[in-house]
């Protein structure tokens, strides 16, 4: 390896650490409390939990605060913490049919059984910065409270559970049946995974993937470097119960997406069928869940002609923490490698003369 151990500069490094503490905790303005981050930067917290691979909103909020809002650094802190705590076992499989839905939409059918639940979303509005609300935050809070009260008075209670769109398609024989679950799932946090890998491992990689990275590759497929033009069968955001050996532990918020893709002839079947891609991630992160589902579907293709169909390309380049670590390590001393390059260049020039 062309690296050299860092010797010297210890005092400068210690001073740098102190400066970072000052930058992080030495503000002149009032410190932002963790509960404020949890409430007012909820989507950033969700993103950090997903990429860090640990569901603990408060910890993710601490990490975001310490990382000065840098989601990569915050996810790194969370994943490092995760690696330092003992494992107590695997939770039972989660049944998302039991989800307490905050939002549930289908882009495939308008009149879905149970109805479309839009929830809170910026999807249908204009992207204007709401100076009118910022200018009078007190009024904005009163308005929000009133709006919620009015909606609650006028609204119909949301059912405890909703039927799944994909189940309806399956009942009609229009969608391929899900593969039977393998007896033993791969655990990518404990095993060295070789490519090609199992679907369970692929979905785990995607669930911890960096949102932007997943989006870039999914988008490449949507634009034409692939053949996936997804229809969102169903997108859900809500809370699901988590149990360990049958004992309830609590609820976690997740986003689930099922995309329906082009027709294919199923195995041993003459009739063409729709196929499906699946995404599930911590918290509310719709962009990630959709990207996951698209990439899950692209990686199921028999052919491997585009980056999004290539398991190695997708899985090994979308882990934000791995990619960030590799990218940032170039800032560390490479004196020996660069000295070798310099010597080589000078040698070549000497030979030319």
């Amino acid at each position, binding site marked *: 390896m062309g690296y050299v151990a860092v010797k010297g500069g210890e005092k400068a490094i210690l001073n740098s650490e102190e400066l970072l503490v000052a930058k992080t905790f030495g503000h002149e303005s009032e410190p932002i409390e963790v509960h404020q981050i949890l409430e007012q930067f909820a989507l950033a917290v969700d993103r950090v939990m997903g990429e860090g691979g640990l569901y603990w909103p*408060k910890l993710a909020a601490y990490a975001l605060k310490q990382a000065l809002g840098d989601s990569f650094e915050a996810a790194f802190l969370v994943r490092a913490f995760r690696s330092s705590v003992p494992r107590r076992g695997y939770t039972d499989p989660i049944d998302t049919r039991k989800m307490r839905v905050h939002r549930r939409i289908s882009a495939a059918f308008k009149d879905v059984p149970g109805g479309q639940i839009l929830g809170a979303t910026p999807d249908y509005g204009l992207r204007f910065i709401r100076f009118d609300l910022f200018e009078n935050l007190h009024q904005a809070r009163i308005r929000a409270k009133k709006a919620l009260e009015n909606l609650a008075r006028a609204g119909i209670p949301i059912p405890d559970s909703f039927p799944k769109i994909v189940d309806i398609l399956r009942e009609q024989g229009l969608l391929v049946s899900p593969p039977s679950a393998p007896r033993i799932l791969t655990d990518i946090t404990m095993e060295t995974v070789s490519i090609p890998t199992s679907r369970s491992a692929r979905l785990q990689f995607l669930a911890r993937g960096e949102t932007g990275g997943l989006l870039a590759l999914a988008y490449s497929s949507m634009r034409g470097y692939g053949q996936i033009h997804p229809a969102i069968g169903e997108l859900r955001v809500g809370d699901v119960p988590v149990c360990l050996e049958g004992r309830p532990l609590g609820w976690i918020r997740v986003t689930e997406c099922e995309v329906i893709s082009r027709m294919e002839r199923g195995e041993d079947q003459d009739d063409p069928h729709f196929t499906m891609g699946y995404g599930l991630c911590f918290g509310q992160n719709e962009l990630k869940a959709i990207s996951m589902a698209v990439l899950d579907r692209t990686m199921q293709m028999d052919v491997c002609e585009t980056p999004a169909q290539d398991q190695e390309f997708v899985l090994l380049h979308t882990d934000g923490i791995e990619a960030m670590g590799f990218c940032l390590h170039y800032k560390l001393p490479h004196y020996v490698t660069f000295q070798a390059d310099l010597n080589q260049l000078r040698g070549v020039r000497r030979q030319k003369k």
Partner: protein
Amino acid sequence: MFTLTEEVLRVQRCYRTLLHVLSRPGTLARLDLPIERKNRLVSVPSPLLLACECLLDEKVTVSGLTERGRLWAEEISRGMRVKLAELEEADFVLSGVEASASELLSLKRGSLLAPEEGATLFVYVEEGIKGDAGLLGFAGPGVKGRLSLRVSAAVLDWASQRGKLCFEYPMGFEAFLFDREGNVLGIPRACEIEVLKPRRG
């Protein structure tokens, strides 16, 4: 759903301390032990229990070396659902200080391809790590030049046994020595330890 309890924070501090001493061989640090002892796992000394709570779980295996070490390992296995394993197979080994070189040689040392599979040894020193029995010298990665530490007779004896071992780098095992006050000493596989002033008699 989860809260940052004092227990979680203590285990985090313990983790930090273990990292600290392992990267600075020859330097003692002190664990932040709980004031009140839990009722379960009564025979396992507090510092050893805290380190086990920090590093052991269902995904690793544990074994014991020396009579007390085996007793502690069995208790940890029962209380923390850590799988028991043979000494040669265990990821973590709990031991009294009286282990011999030949016994230490039985520990998993990993392979050239997978050195991370080497064991981690927790040694409990009843009489304390610090003492006036002799001087122990430390050299290798994490030590600027050479460091020396005054230690008890028990540590000196253990170090002389450890000094008899020779592994092909990067194979080997990491060791942590604990005492009842919560002092902890880390001895990574690449650390050279030498008895500089042996005990008299």
